[in-house]
């Protein structure tokens, strides 16, 4: 599903963001990626989304070799991913329904399938009743669930969540991660980037720890991640 082979990324301004990272995430896995700010988590996401290309090494996602992918293949590749962000990135002028439908509209999906698919996904995240509301009428947790519905509406095999709980009250954060957990059970691979120690500790899942651009830990939380933070 995801394969990084000796990946390094140095930005034009000389910042060394990732240094010789190799890792592998298989189909159906649920992975937390953790580390302090500035560790290289954002770069990791950008490489996954093909917003950036590595300076060295090979990035493969969903069967696409992102080093060799042609520009006009990028849209096709991105349709195989679902992405949610810390800031939700909803369009304020659109209703909840339209925000979710938007992801389908821009990818040449027929109106008929849009009418079938959108209510289904909204039901999945528990927002069927709020379809006609606008984003600013919803709480942070609800907005993130709309974003999650939008990410899932294409039925992607891989879901990437970049700090999805960063702007949400702690009690609602748990709900979001539980939802991701639920989605994972249906077979979707989930990669969640976070720095919320508390949240990760509640789920016994694989944790990849990045610091100073390198993978410093990979395993279940109870191994070494806790020490890293407290130390």
């Amino acid at each position: 599903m995801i394969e990084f082979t000796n990946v390094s990324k140095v930005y034009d301004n000389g910042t060394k963001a990732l240094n010789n990272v190799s890792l592998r995430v298989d189909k159906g896995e649920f992975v937390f990626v953790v580390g302090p700010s500035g560790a290289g988590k954002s770069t990791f996401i950008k490489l996954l989304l093909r917003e950036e290309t590595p300076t060295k090494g090979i990035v493969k996602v969903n069967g696409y070799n992102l080093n060799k992918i042609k520009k006009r293949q990028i849209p096709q590749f991105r349709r195989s991913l679902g992405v949610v962000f810390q800031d939700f990135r909803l369009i304020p002028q659109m209703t909840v329904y339209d925000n979710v439908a938007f992801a389908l509209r821009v990818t040449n999906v027929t109106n008929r399938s849009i009418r079938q698919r959108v209510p289904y996904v909204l039901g999945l995240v528990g927002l069927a009743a709020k379809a006609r509301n606008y984003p600013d009428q919803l709480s942070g947790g609800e907005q993130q669930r709309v974003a999650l519905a939008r990410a899932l509406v294409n039925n992607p095999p891989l879901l990437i969540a970049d700090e999805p709980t960063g702007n949400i009250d702690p009690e609602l954060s748990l709900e979001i991660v539980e939802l991701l957990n639920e989605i994972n059970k249906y077979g979707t691979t989930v990669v969640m980037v976070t720095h919320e120690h508390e949240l990760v500790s509640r789920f016994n899942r694989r944790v990849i720890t990045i610091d100073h651009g390198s993978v410093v830990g990979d395993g279940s939380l109870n191994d070494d991640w806790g020490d890293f933070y407290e130390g």
Partner: protein
Amino acid sequence: MKGSSMGYLLKTGFKNVYMNRLMSFASIGVLVACLMLIGSAVLLSLNMQVIVGAVEDENEMVAFLNMDVSDEQAKQIGEEIKNIPEIEEYYFYSSEEAWAEEQKKWGAASAMVEVDVDGNDLGPILPDAYRIKLKDVSQTTLDSVEQQLLEIDGIDPDIRTPSEEATILSDLERAISTVGGVIVIILAVVSVVIIANTIKITIFSRRKEISIMRLVGATNTFIKMPFIIEGMLIGLISALIAFGGLWVAYNYATQFIMTNPSSWLEIAIGRLINFKDIAHYMLAGFAIGGCGLGIIGSNLFIRRHLKV
């Protein structure tokens, strides 16, 4: 591209024009001015051509031969005239033909000059001549042909040239096309820049949407399309307004000329182009021109502002 997404793209394009209506209004205003000027220049130039043609038909150069030129010499002179490159056609106009035409024009009065007071035949009193049609009636051509005719032996130095009007008209026509062309180019550039800025503002106000579109895998064409449609729509609306405006203005202008005819325009009045006859060309031209400028304008910034 499927029908449903085409509908979505069109709707977004229309919405862009409306949401950004102040700038759209400015673009349409400038584009209408530009198209109307182009249209006026075209109409004026077409009518000038018609008028110049009319004046040209009425006028030709006439080179009289000296009275003592024999038929043989006259033929020789004809050969030499043939060699002047600016001449389109020429024909020999004999003394007898000239006489017959004079008689027709003046009727009985002309009979009196045929004989002197004693009744003696005076013989031919009108010279033989060559009537010459030129390829155009600009002053330079006239001067050059006159010069060349004067060099031919046996031609009377008093060469009759087309009236001043034709020359002035043809110079005027050229001046109008040149000045009109320059103004049109400037205005076209201005409208492209204004349309481009209008689209830039739309792109800026929708940048969040665009970034999301990219994330969920919209193709570049799909992302660009609403902005191109926006530009096209601005062009099309402008074309329609300019077309209607020009039609009204043109009819008003021709009406005015017909009710206030000046002497030299009289010949042309019957020939003025009727707007109805060229309306479909005008409309097609405007639509293509408007859409073209709109598309060029929208593409100008799309490339720079919509990177993958």
